[in-house]
């Protein structure tokens, strides 16, 4: 049913939306991202698609984005598509804050983004967004939450999830090794181990990995921290990875 590929919004004869499935395939070629939910908070670990020494990376993260002070997201897939949706979600979050003077419930933010993604699978003849997200954050109703969304507009809540390259291997690894009631440190360990499984190497280099976590400090405030290169190095060494030194 190749000939049903070209029209994005038509069902193929066996009841599938080929364009959406192609988009999902596209995500599976992209750099991988892992999200882990623990009682103490959320960890994101992702692989940088491109890390040339010519790239000015010091301030800008390609993968991890702050949507509001209480929710962050990680992207796998087409960066340009993702940027648009990130902008949309930031505006939606602030608009909610204007009306209600409160953090937007994360589920509502995810639902809004997914509604937009779904529209492009049904209306207009335009291709779907080639970006999958992991959303993580804290709100007062459900506390720490982790959601994934894909180009079809589906979303789900997870305890641990991997998307992107080799996500099947990573997800089965997570399924075997995830435990309830992990601490933040254990979550970070699990995330980095799962990520290295997707990169399929036992000597990863820190500049290829981006790791961040969200947790509450002693004062009960939400803090989000991206690990710098030294901390990533320590994390890798703590988990017995032979780290490839930068040339």
């Amino acid at each position, binding site marked *: 049913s190749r000939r049903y590929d070209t029209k994005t919004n038509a069902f193929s004869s066996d009841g599938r939306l080929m364009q959406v499935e192609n988009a999902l395939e596209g995500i599976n070629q992209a750099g991988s991202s892992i999200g882990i939910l623990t009682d103490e908070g959320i960890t994101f670990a992702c692989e940088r698609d491109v890390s040339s020494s010519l790239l000015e990376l010091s301030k800008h993260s390609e993968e991890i984005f702050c949507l509001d002070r209480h929710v962050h997201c990680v992207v796998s897939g087409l960066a340009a598509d993702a940027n648009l949706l990130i902008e949309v979600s930031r505006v939606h979050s602030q608009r909610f804050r*204007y*009306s*209600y*003077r*409160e953090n937007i*419930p994360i*589920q*509502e933010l995810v639902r809004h983004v997914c509604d937009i993604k779904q529209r492009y699978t049904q209306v207009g003849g335009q291709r779907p967004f080639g970006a999958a997200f992991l959303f993580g954050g804290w709100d007062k*109703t459900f506390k720490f939450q982790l959601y994934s969304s894909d180009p079809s507009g589906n979303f789900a809540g997870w305890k641990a999830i991997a998307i992107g390259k080799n996500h099947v291997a990573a997800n089965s690894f997570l399924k075997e090794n995830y435990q309830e009631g992990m601490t933040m440190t254990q979550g970070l360990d699990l995330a980095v181990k799962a990520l290295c499984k997707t990169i399929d190497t036992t000597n990863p280099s820190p500049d290829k990995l981006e790791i961040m976590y969200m947790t509450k400090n002693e004062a009960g405030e939400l803090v989000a921290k991206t690990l710098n290169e030294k901390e990533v190095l320590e994390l890798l060494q703590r988990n017995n990875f032979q780290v490839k030194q930068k040339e």
Partner: protein
Amino acid sequence: MDTVFGFVGKDFALVATDCGVAYSIMRFSDTEDKIMAVDDNKLFAMGGEIGDRLNFGEYIQKNIHLYTFRTGIKLNVREAANYTRSELAYAIRNGPYQVNLLIGGFDEEGPSLYWLDYLGTLQKLTRGAHGYGAYFVSGLLDNWFKPDLTLDEGIELVKKCINEVQTRFLMSQKNFVVKIVTKDGIRVI
């Protein structure tokens, strides 16, 4: 002119309104309930133009209920008050709702009272009033209010306020409706 007043006690929020509906030189009704219940823990006591009061009140009530149906999350009083304010603020430059409200509610932050007016003003208060009656009861509320009022003390204060308005206000305000919100829900006194 509608009299609306209210205050916050130890574990309850109380709002009261008069029951009169007047048009031009005529009194239509003496039994109008101007306090709308939103969810089971918020009371919207409204005064102002009759049509706007009903229309705006129902509009806000339904929108807040819609939010709960859509997301499964109940808005707390602060969020509901801010939402109401944002609707009033939008309308002021398009086609104002001539409604002044007191929002009394009880949520995880305890009892609270919010004073809103038709311009989009919002203020969290321990005691407040709208309408011509406000000129009469503000002094009483200031004088007799203290933090952590019990329900009985609160009812005493309400009686004083109603008495004052009935004695001294130009227009006859025969009946009043008084409602409270506690952690157990809404009750009519």
